[in-house]
């Protein structure tokens, strides 16, 4: 069994992995960039080392430095979390060369599934249904035009190395193709260091349903049910749940078996996710493999009772997967929502700031995966995810009611976030009734603005707080009857 793990990540996922290590009696090593030196994962790990400046390319993406720290601290294994180096085949290869266990698939499988085009071709050969589209990367704008014409508009432009919606563009008509191509390539280059893109037929109003799989190094593999992640903004999942309201037990089994075909065809091992789109006829199409622990893995953990991080570590240690397909039972319903540092009043642009007040929800069947603390600076440097709120309920209705109560309990001041938006979405009649699709947000919330019916009350509360603060300075004369904030300002600036 692995004895010591370097966690090559930050934020809530680093905390999650350190927690699992602690419970398994495994030593944990954290890394941190200059701006993260007081972060929660740094405090929780058994050891922590600075890895470079704020800029991720020089720190969390710095392979040489990462390997260097792994060597120095004598770890057996590296857990990459998600994002950063998690799906970088060069990093996996380097770990293999250095005789360090990479907690994830081998470099060959990683290379294959990371190439969206090659993996499409590979799984199609194995009999897995794929979305119509290109089987080669794009070579020119002319090539693009021709392929788009053949597929018929709208088409979807995707980064071959992609993930997380980056480098993805829906193109409605020919005239928009060139501009979309340039922007997609630029974003893909910035995100993945690779600007290859390709075209797929754009499916209208599909559901996004993905299958969680576990595969050990001895050929044994299982699927752990599905997650529906149709609720997306800008191709970013924001609400995920299990089970999906679209699946019958038969369809679930069929998709599970298909996911295992993908695993076999690609030689994939460890935890992974096979993503599908489901159209209105309940036909499903392979989308891609996410070769990592997913952001939304807690949803599966809550319904299956299986700790995916511990399974990852056991599989990476070379252990036999001790799960049998017919013993994996999903119980009840779990929903996750992702809390982002975004400003709903400014079209959900990312927001930065310092968390000045924090109250995180808790309670039976409420899970809050977070690395937040009061005083934390949310900077421009990293992904704007603040936390993940996950609830479980005996039924979907129970879970929705619990999620709404937990959102109501969540207080984050000092940085803008979209909790009120998330509450609106899960409260929506169509969501409650299970009518979800990937264009749900676009069609229902085209121009959403927060309801701010309490602005005046907020102003009153602020003024009352100011006056109360004044009482802490008895040595200064107060003007009691007619309150004049101009005199108050002096204190304020002094404090």
């Amino acid at each position: 069994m692995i004895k010591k793990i370097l966690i090559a990540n930050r934020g809530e996922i680093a905390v999650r992995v350190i927690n699992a290590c602690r419970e398994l009696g495994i030593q944990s090593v954290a890394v941190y960039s200059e701006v993260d030196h007081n972060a929660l994962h740094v405090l929780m790990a058994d050891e922590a080392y600075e890895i470079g400046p704020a800029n991720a390319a020089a720190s969390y993406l710095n392979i040489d430095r990462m390997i260097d720290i792994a060597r120095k601290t004598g770890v057996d294994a590296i857990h990459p979390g998600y994002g950063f180096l998690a799906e970088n085949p060069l990093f996996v290869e380097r770990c293999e060369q250095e005789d360090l266990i990479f907690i994830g698939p081998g470099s060959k499988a990683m290379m294959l599934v990371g190439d969206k085009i090659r993996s499409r071709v590979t799984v199609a050969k194995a009999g897995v249904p794929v979305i119509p589209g290109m089987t080669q990367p794009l070579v020119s704008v002319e090539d693009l035009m021709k392929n788009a014409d053949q597929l018929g508009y709208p088409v979807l432009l995707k980064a071959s190395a992609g993930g997380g919606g980056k480098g993805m563009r829906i193109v409605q008509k020919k005239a928009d193709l060139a501009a979309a191509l340039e922007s997609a390539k630029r974003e893909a280059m910035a995100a993945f260091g690779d600007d290859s893109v390709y075209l797929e037929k754009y499916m209208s109003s599909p559901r996004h349903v993905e299958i969680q799989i576990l595969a050990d190094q001895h050929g044994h593999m299982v699927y752990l049910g599905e997650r529906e992640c149709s609720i997306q903004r800008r191709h970013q999942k924001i609400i995920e749940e299990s089970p999906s309201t679209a699946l019958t037990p038969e369809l679930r089994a069929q998709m599970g078996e298909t996911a295992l075909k993908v695993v076999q065809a690609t030689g994939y091992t460890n935890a992974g996710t096979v993503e599908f789109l489901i159209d209105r006829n309940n036909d499903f199409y392979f989308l891609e493999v996410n070769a990592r622990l997913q952001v939304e893995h807690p949803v599966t953990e809550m319904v299956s009772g299986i700790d995916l991080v511990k399974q990852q570590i056991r599989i990476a240690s070379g252990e036999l997967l001790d799960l049998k397909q017919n013993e994996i039972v999903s119980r009840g319903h779990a929903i996750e929502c992702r809390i982002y540092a975004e400003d709903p009043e400014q079209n959900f642009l990312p927001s930065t700031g310092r968390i000045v007040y924090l109250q995180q929800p808790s309670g039976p069947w409420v899970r809050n995966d977070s690395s937040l603390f009061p005083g934390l600076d949310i900077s421009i440097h990293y992904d704007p995810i603040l936390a993940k709120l996950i609830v479980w309920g005996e039924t979907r209705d129970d879970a929705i009611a619990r999620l709404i109560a937990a959102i109501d309990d969540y207080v984050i001041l000092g940085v803008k976030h979209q909790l009120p938006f998330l509450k609106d979405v899960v409260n929506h009649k169509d969501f409650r009734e299970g009518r979800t699709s990937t264009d749900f947000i676009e069609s229902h919330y085209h121009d959403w603005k927060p309801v701010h019916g309490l602005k005046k009350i907020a102003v009153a509360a602020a003024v009352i707080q100011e006056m109360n603060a004044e009482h802490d300075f008895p040595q200064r004369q107060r003007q009691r009857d007619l309150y004049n904030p101009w005199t108050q300002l002096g204190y304020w600036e002094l404090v």
Partner: protein
Amino acid sequence: MHVKYTVSGEIFHVSVNKSDNVYTVKINDDEMIFEYRMIDPHKMMLRSPDASYKAIVTTEPGASHVHVNHQSFKVEKIIQSKSSDFKKEHLLVDESPIITTPMPGKVLKVFVKEGDEIRTKQSLLILEAMKMENNITAPRDGIVKRINFSEGDLVEAGQTLIELE
């Protein structure tokens, strides 16, 4: 003389009276009466004749962050006596001649040039922040008078990007 606060671009003129544990707060000609009770240094209960509220307030110089009944606000004080704040107030009115950055980031692309006539919602520039490309659009119609930044520049939140005529 009244004090002004702003919340998400809306201006509130405020005066306050206190006697015992009751505050009379006049906001934009709307007079409200509140009893209050502090729960801890940041939490308070407010009771008006119609309703009661649970508020969380933290203060920093010039602004308060307030959470009331599941809604969050930043309440900023407008200080008119200083020139720097004069500009701040300008931003709040629709005819503001200044387009500022909503967040810190890197300017990837600028689509307009000085002298261009622009329309509401027209794309002006692409700002990269937190690994995402964000399309910054025009808040109103106008003519570009001045562009303060070039492609590739790093900008702070609140900096003036484009001035309109």
